């Protein structure tokens, strides 16, 4: 199975997002680099709006991810509640 990943700028806004991702994807692996935090996973990674909202205490639009997003790998699918990355192979 291939690795999917997502990377964010390291800052106050991305911290709860990263925490949510790690909580919701138990097999995901954190990779911290200068000014950037990367999360790798086998085959699939899921970001849940609700998990982020629980942590930040306000309504969160998943499209806000774009402000601190650096890069992704995998096929993207998004709807109102979830943002997912997958490789089908």
């Amino acid at each position, binding site marked *: 199975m*291939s*690795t999917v990943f997502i990377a964010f*700028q390291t800052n106050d806004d991305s911290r709860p997002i990263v925490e949510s991702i790690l909580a919701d994807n138990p097999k995901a692996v954190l990779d911290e680099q*200068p*000014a*950037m935090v990367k999360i790798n996973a086998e085959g699939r990674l899921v970001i849940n709006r609700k998990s982020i909202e629980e942590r930040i205490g306000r309504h969160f639009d998943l*499209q*806000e991810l*774009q*402000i*601190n*997003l*650096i*890069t*992704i*790998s995998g*096929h*993207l699918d*998004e*709807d*109102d509640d979830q943002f997912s990355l997958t*490789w*089908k*192979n």
Partner: protein
Amino acid sequence: MDKQADKKKLSLKEKYAHMTRGLDWETTYQSMDKVFPQAKFEGIKIHDWDKWEDPFRLTMDSYWKYQAEKERKLYAVLDAFAQNNGHLGVTDARYINALKLFLTGISPLEYVAHRGFAAAGRNFPGVGPRVACLMQSLDEVRHSQTQIHALSNYNKHYDGFHDFKHMLERVWYLSVPKSFFDDAFSSGPFEYMIAIGFSFEYVLTNLLFVPFMSGAAYNGDMATVTFGFSAQSDEARHMTLGLECIKFMLEQDPDNLPIVQKWIDKWAWRGIRVLTLVGMMMDYMLPKRVMSWKEAWEIYFEQNGGALFGDLARYGIKVPECLTQCSIDKEHISHQAWATFYQYGGAAAFHTWMPNDEEMDWLSAKYPNTFDKYYRERFTHWRDEAEKGNRFYNNTLPMLCQVCQIPMLFTEPNDPTQICYRESEYEGEKYHTCSDGCKHIFDNEPQKYIQAWLPVHQIYQGNCFPEGTDPTVEGFNPLAKVLEWYHLEHGKDNLDFEGSRDQKNFDTWRGLATKNNT
């Protein structure tokens, strides 16, 4: 009771469909073929544009909202950087030469990408891809301008940045990236998307951006790091567009496969050739190195690319054949390129130098199979000569490859002591290429590549002198006149870093900022 609350809320997908798909219609007063004249000539068959899956479903008002936030944050940093002489925070002034390569070789091409995506955004009959392409066109304006703005402060203090568009059009090594984008923009919209949207923005993007941006981070360049990270979030959208484009084309009709494969083969190779400049930058121009080109290639192409091509295999896509040679090339090209730029440093708009011992040891460690065997001795010899006052400058111009336009500096995959020459004949003329990859590209479209404006050929034809130049005059110095035509200031923009105005100024200013004046 509030009727609004009872109304079913539209999902993101549904809302987005109304906001984009619904806007378009099949024209009847003018034929669709007339409204979209470029949709069919490349032979790509699309049966149902509605099958296009919109990757990021961004409405225009959301685009403005999120992009404006990114811009506010970015410009706050650029302002602070300028106000606080941030340029003095870099590791050492040699690093700044990497930025010169960036501003002259990349930023004006972000602008060409903007025009190319605007064209794609007009020429595809499907609304989905049009909207995505137009947003990318807008992003590319952003990248072009934020790069210029970030590097503007460097231009004020250092040489080589001052006339970037003029140089891009003329200077010999800049025709490498320029011809790449000219090639893409001169192609039809489908090829353009495979060339730029897929090959460049998806397959190869990390090999361009990670070196430059990490290089900036490692070398204390806050302005470029900030620009880089800010731009990367746009790149995520671009990547998904590129991937969706290729999927869509392959799913629409099996007849599209051979055309798409041919384009992937061509553009992967053309892109990799352009990245030679990046490899050289990573291994030789960063005082604090991030990783070697070899390592970057292994992570970002061999591993990542493996995942991608593994995924596309289900459509019948194969990894381009020419790429197998890259696993050999990865250990050579950066050294070969730097050797070339070092000796032609008289005609480059950035400084060059030979690595010191510590840097050579790093290169030996990172390239255990090649550096000591093929390059270290030559570089040490050049360094010794420079110290004696005989800094080597080659005054005979190099032959360029007809396709990638890089000097013929690459070696045979199975023999690094042999320059690789390939030859093709077309309409009674001989044309030369640097590799099987470039020869293959030439042979597929000779009518295109014979048009190339090869900088060295043009110099020898006398087309690169300022207007009114008389080459018959006693003591005529053609190189000096070419530099004048390039707007390259001899003694300031070019030559070795040692003794340069950049070096002197940086040291003086750093001294001002850290020592007390009497």
